[in-house]
């Protein structure tokens, strides 16, 4: 996020799009609630009437995959009603004229209503409320990024923030809420194909040289593959071996039947995890790892704050912390990585990574954390970014046209399926489904279906339904609700039986390579026979340890 969690308490307008904040980031949901009660206008764009949408002053209930049209129409209103922040645009940005021309000409709220299903008047009201607020913050999450147009969506959000001058000040900003506890840190540390730690570039010779010196090896200049590309390459035979640490792509990735086929065709698969996950069951070697409560180290949260984790209990049996396992393995591969502990590893990171330059476990011990960029040992950290200038100089507007989602509904697959998280579970359920209380609260997967659609299909809550997409099919339980948009169905992805990702589309954004988990076309049919098991089929393995 450009800004910090608690700044939203003092925002005057909060625009949430593609984030079910109270469920996926509950404590930020509470901060937003405090902002709302203090008088901020809350605008929520979501195909479902989530708790946050229910609390909102304006709920834009748009069809999944139409975010760019919605955002462009808001900017159309801002431009034509002259609500833009002229001073900010003139001093801090470039490319405004092209964007303004595009949205003014092609994205009237009336046209956007045709695309998004949101009444034009509501779009205009939201645009005015956001543009007129002194401090406006935009919050978004995977509902924006998990699309074939994910990058377009994000750039459109940046356009809206810049056109209203809501960047570089307290209580404003472009704020992606990061899903997993250390997804920010994993990116910062360059668990990414094109980067070296701290967003230095594999493609940049000077950046490479610095790491080559420090590590004493020559680094490859060949660009690496993203997760989705690796899975495809595994299926095609380009990738022969994979080493998977603490990930469960057999639940989290799109088009699971394809993922399984890909992992099975590897010559060698190593999985390092805390449980024998669906992915680990396919491995040749499984390495037992310590859980977060069993090790020291740091996580970087969504507001770029590096914070200290402490070992509370010993790891069970012979399991070991991931850093110890990697160290030993790397030594066997001829590149020893031995450290007294995570604090020493952080010192190495700080020495090579300018944005982490001032981070050390010693400084973090106070509990305040440090928000990067934190370039040196005396730097207090950075609560919000882009205060005086953007890292690239001027902020670049991008004129972006709406493109439909990769997969459209048709007669055979008439319903849009969108997937997401729920409050009581985390990611692939590996952990939370082993918590008795959480499991008891939401023991199994389900699908939310609009009440009028359900009436037409003759469905009631609790009925078993079969969902079929162009990739797979599964049986789950219907929850009939008025809060989902007509023609749309929602399914949480945490559950291994009836895993939503059997259905989803792996088509991905051409730049960010993020799969379109938020939109695919499905058919919903009642399952007549009583007692049909709620399990996936079409090639999904259930639990067996045997290939």
């Amino acid at each position, binding site marked *: 996020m450009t800004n910090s969690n608690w700044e939203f308490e003092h925002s005057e307008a909060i625009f949430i799009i593609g984030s079910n904040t109270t469920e996926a980031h509950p404590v930020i949901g509470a901060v937003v609630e405090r902002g709302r009660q203090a008088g901020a206008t809350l605008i929520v764009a979501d195909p479902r009437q989530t708790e946050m949408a229910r609390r909102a002053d304006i709920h834009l209930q748009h069809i999944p995959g139409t975010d760019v049209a919605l955002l462009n129409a808001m900017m159309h209103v801002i431009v034509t009603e002259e609500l833009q922040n002229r001073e900010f645009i003139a001093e801090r940005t470039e490319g405004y004229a092209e964007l303004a021309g595009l949205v003014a000409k092609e994205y009237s709220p009336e046209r956007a209503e045709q695309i998004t299903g949101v009444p034009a008047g509501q779009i205009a009201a939201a645009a005015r409320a956001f543009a007129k607020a002194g401090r406006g913050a935009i919050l978004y999450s995977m509902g924006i990024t998990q699309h074939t147009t994910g990058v377009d969506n994000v750039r459109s959000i940046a356009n809206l923030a810049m056109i209203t001058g809501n960047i570089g000040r307290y209580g404003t900003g472009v704020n992606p809420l990061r899903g997993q506890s250390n997804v920010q840190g994993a990116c910062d540390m360059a668990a990414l194909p094109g980067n070296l730690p701290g967003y230095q570039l594999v493609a940049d010779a000077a950046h490479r040289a610095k790491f080559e010196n420090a590590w004493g090896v020559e680094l490859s200049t060949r660009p690496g593959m993203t997760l989705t590309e690796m899975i495809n390459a595994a299926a095609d035979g380009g990738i022969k071996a994979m080493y998977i640490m603490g990930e469960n792509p057999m639940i989290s990735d799109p088009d699971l039947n394809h993922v399984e086929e890909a992992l099975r065709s590897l010559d060698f698969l190593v999985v390092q995890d805390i449980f024998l996950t669906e992915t680990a069951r396919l491995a040749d070697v499984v390495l037992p790892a310590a859980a977060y409560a069993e090790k020291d180290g740091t996580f970087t949260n969504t507001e770029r704050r590096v914070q200290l984790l402490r070992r509370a209990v010993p790891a069970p049996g012979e399991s070991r912390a991931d850093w110890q396992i990697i160290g030993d393995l790397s030594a066997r591969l001829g*590149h020893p990585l031995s450290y007294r502990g995570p604090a020493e590893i952080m010192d190495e990171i700080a020495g090579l990574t300018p944005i982490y330059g001032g981070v050390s476990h010693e400084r973090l011990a106070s509990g305040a954390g440090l928000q990067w960029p934190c370039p040196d040992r005396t730097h207090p950290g950075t609560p919000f970014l882009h205060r005086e200038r953007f890292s690239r100089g001027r902020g670049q507007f991008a004129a972006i046209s709406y493109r439909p989602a990769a997969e459209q509904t048709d007669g055979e697959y008439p319903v849009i399926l969108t997937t997401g998280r729920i409050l009581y579970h985390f990611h692939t359920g590996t952990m939370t489904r082993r918590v008795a209380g959480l499991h008891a609260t939401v023991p199994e997967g389900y699908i939310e279906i609009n009440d009028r659609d359900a009436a037409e299909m003759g469905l009631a809550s609790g009925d078993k339904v079969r969902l079929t997409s162009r990739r797979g099919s599964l049986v789950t339980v219907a929850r009939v609700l008025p809060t989902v948009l007509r023609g749309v169905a929602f399914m949480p992805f945490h559950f291994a039986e009836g895993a939503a990702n059997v259905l989803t589309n792996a088509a991905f954004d051409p730049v960010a390579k993020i799969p379109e988990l938020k939109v695919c076309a499905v058919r919903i049919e009642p399952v007549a026979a009583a007692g049909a098991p709620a399990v996936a089929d079409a090639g999904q393995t259930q639990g067996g340890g045997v290939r």
Partner: protein
Amino acid sequence: MADQLRLTVDGRDVLVPAGATILGAAEAAGVEIPTLCHHPLLKPSGACRMCLVEVEGARGLLTACSTPASGGMIVRTRTDQVVAARRTVLELLVSEHPLDCLTCESTGDCRLQDYAYEYSVTGRDVAGLPNTPAADGRQAKLDDSNPFLVRDLNKCILCGRCVRICHEVMGYGAIDFVSRGATTKVTTAFDVPLEESPCVFCGNCLTICPTGALQAKTGRGLGRSFQYDRVRTICTFCGVGCSLDLHVRDGRIIGASAAEGPANRGLVCVKGHFGHDWIQSPDRLTTPLIRAGDGTFRRATWDEALDLVASRLAEIKAAHGPDAIGGLASAKCTNEENYLFQRMMRAAIGTNNVDHCARL
């Protein structure tokens, strides 16, 4: 400085911003005033009257938590009159409170108990108020039908902190004061169990309850605050980065509580508060496993497993080049581990094929 106020608290000079309360001024002066209903995240309510102080020139005692400080004020927090008034407040509360501290989960972590001790209040000193909570018509059944929270309203002192945090911070408003005749209690609409209310089991009400009226269901009977260690760490369940204290007794995690951190300011959600059983699950992997010829897994030593991984990766690299190997690091592992993982992939194996599920 127009927007600063100068006043004296217990003889100490202090400068505070305009709008500060007497309580805030006392804090700034390093003087502690006891409070029960006050909480920094919540609007002042002045409900418990525990924070009474004497202000020169004012008629009667004032509640420090809800009275604004003003320039030149002379505040005294420890006079005989103040102490006597606080003692009366406590006598009334304790006289209605079950004195089963022996078995109460909150013993050692209870403001009412701490203040009763500090002010030597037994609850037997108020004429006509024997310590018989059952007699006052509030004798209530435990609400423990949900998996997370136990409500024992017999221990409730009606400070209203839980109600206010649920309304003012969480925005669910699952609980409220309900009056029937002379008695008031804190409960859900229509007095239904919590799980039938809009409650989302964040347990933030439990965190700020000053008594044992709200308790976590999970750690009950496993140890009280003076029996376990608190280990400060960061929640693993989402990117908010809430600070948590894990409660550790005899090498086992018996519970968790919200901690005051810059990202969460003492708040958590249901997962961070109650979602830690899995750490000690019997399903945890405890040894390396190697797939045997018949397709099943067999246990292996670390040396055996790591030797096998290293030799197979080396073979594949020799036969197909380093880019035939791909690595997935993890958004659930630490920075240090992700750093080492990508260093191993890049420096030891020689490929940039490293990613994680940032996008999922």
